[in-house]
């Protein structure tokens, strides 16, 4: 696991419009972007970062062990190939920004990654940020991450990319900061579901509390509740599950993210909140209450 820390970062799709912009913002924040990969564009450079035709070319040039994470920003139908390339040639952790990856492709890439023992965040993740290291993996925070994220003691996990930053902003306005934030991705098929993301954030020594943002659909909140119940999450978890209004609309109506869909009576925010509260999470219903609750358990840090 090299998401956090100071390992080198590679960007697959660095020569695209999104890739260039993300590379520029990651570098200016202080992230050590050491290589870019775009098939057919080897030999170019983006913001001073050398571009290679393949992951194995990048490894050959940077040296083994230098690259700890790859950020994948390629078109949806090219994502499976890019991720497979990173898993096979680099064996590094991966953050997938691409939205709209076909489900069968997502399934295959997650199985391949699991077999290789690498951590995948996403698809459809705005990124991962560690303000204390001035390290960000992906577009998270845009060109001014410090507007939303200042160093501190709170971990953030969110199924919504935008809400990852909004919670950072909420904490900052309350005089609090962030140890690490993970946008786990808006899809149903993701590599680092909230329950596992909570363990990852807890392992950061600064983390004294975790804020969670959930949505309708999936079993992620139920799994997170089970994880808390099992005792493996030692820090307090403050959870907000949005989308209660969707319960009064016809089942099968999709909202926002691909995964935010209630099917056959499962995935209701009301049930998720109850389950999380029963497991010992602090369940709040507004961002104002979240700020108050976090201050109560991690304030003064």
């Amino acid at each position, binding site marked *: 696991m090299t998401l956090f820390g100071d390992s080198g970062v590679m960007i697959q799709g660095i020569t695209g419009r999104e890739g260039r912009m993300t590379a520029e913002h990651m570098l200016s924040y202080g992230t050590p972007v050491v290589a870019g990969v775009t098939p057919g564009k080897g030999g170019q450079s983006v913001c001073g970062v050398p571009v290679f035709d393949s992951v194995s070319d990048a490894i050959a040039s940077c040296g083994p062990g230098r690259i700890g994470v790859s950020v994948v920003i390629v078109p949806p139908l090219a994502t499976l190939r890019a991720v497979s390339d990173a898993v096979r040639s680099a064996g590094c952790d991966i953050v997938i920004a691409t939205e709209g990856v076909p489900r069968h492709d997502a399934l295959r890439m997650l199985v391949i990654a699991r077999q290789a023992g690498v951590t995948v965040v996403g698809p459809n993740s705005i990124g991962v940020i560690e303000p204390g290291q001035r390290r960000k993996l992906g577009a998270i*925070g845009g060109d001014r991450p410090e*507007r939303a994220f200042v160093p501190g003691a709170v971990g953030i996990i969110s199924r*919504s990319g935008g809400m990852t*930053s909004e919670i950072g902003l909420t904490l900052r306005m309350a005089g609090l900061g962030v140890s690490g934030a993970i946008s786990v991705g808006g899809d149903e098929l993701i590599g680092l579901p909230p329950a596992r993301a909570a363990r990852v954030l807890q392992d950061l020594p600064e983390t004294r509390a975790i804020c969670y943002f959930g*949505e309708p659909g999936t079993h992620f909140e139920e799994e997170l509740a089970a994880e808390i119940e099992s005792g493996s999450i030692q820090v307090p978890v403050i959870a907000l599950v949005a989308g209660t209004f969707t319960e009064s609309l016809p089942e099968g109506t999709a909202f*926002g993210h691909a995964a935010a869909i209630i099917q056959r009576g499962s995935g209701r925010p009301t049930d998720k909140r109850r389950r999380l509260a029963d497991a010992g999470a602090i369940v709040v219903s507004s961002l104002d209450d979240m700020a108050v609750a976090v201050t109560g358990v991690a304030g003064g840090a």
Partner: protein
Amino acid sequence: MARILEDDAKRLLSEFGLAVPSGRRVTTPIDATDVASAMPGGCVVKALVPTGRRGKAGLVSICSTADEARSAVERMIGMNFDGYLVEAVLIEERIDIAHEYYLSMSIDPAALTFNVLASAFGGVDIEAHAGSITSIGVDPVAPSADREIQLLWSDVGLKDHATVLRDATRNALSAFQSLDATMLELNPLAVDAANRAVAVGAMLAVDDAAIHRHPDLSRLVIEGSDRAARPETLLEQRVAEINADRSQRGSARYLELEGGDIGFLCGGGGASLLLFDAIVAEGGRPANYSEFGGNPTEQRVYDLTRVVLDKPGVRGLFVAHNITNNTQIDVVARGVTRAIRDAGVPAAFPVVAREVGVNDDEGRLIFEEANVLYLGADVSLNGAARIMVERLREAGTW
């Protein structure tokens, strides 16, 4: 989940070696007589709507004569079910069924497998026999699933049927993968008197994210079936047209709701859910749900705002996002304020904008010049919703 009508689904499945009843799509009672007359063994008339549970709603009819088929078609055409108008029916030859099985497949996102379900109690009452369903997980990257499939039916099938059921399952699984399906349900999967496995009932949904690699499928999916459990309204169709213009950057989603008086113009995915809950918690009633983002152009923001304002009964407008990564607040402000002006809303019409992020200093000026109440980072999303509802109350009726 983009659904495909049953006759198209069956034609697709037959290309993967699955046997299906022969049949024809028909839209008039006259054609029904012609088609049914050519089926001396009787026929089955099924309404072509992209939903399940049709049998219990009278939308499946077993007919012995062409006259019966004709009157079944007369009855079904024009009916409404689950919000879908029946415009066509499928007339199929009747299969001499020896036994009805159930087979379905989907993706299990937690186990990262294909989840395959089977039961020896297929047919309309499968839900009453939930306890009879066995399941297997199939590794999506394994070269073969033969062993798992064998296990599946050894628990479920009648001995004589095991071979044909295994073959049908193998074919169905290959269709499921090749078509980028999200759901495939064969109910019943019948074994007929000649010991043939026939997909008598078939429901298929494919992944709209994968549709670009299946140009043949794209014209078969039912419009709007991926977003809502009902057909699109006129305002929703307008937003679909707005999104279809590829020359404009940004995405817009819009769902029209019954009643309500607050025009809801928000984003992104998670923040919209939170903001809608917040409006409701404060006693407000949104007239629609929306979600826009992806750094939209001024024109796209303008067009979406006009749609939101055009819903009858809208008496105020709520514009809000999470702090933006790349969406430019000044551009949003220009689109929204121009739309308000062009729509000619009354002076007392409250507009509240909570927009923080890229170029928000500039955006604030544009909003305030247009008499929009601008809120910044010192007001939370929930606080903004509270202020919106208060403003609407103060405005009263004008």
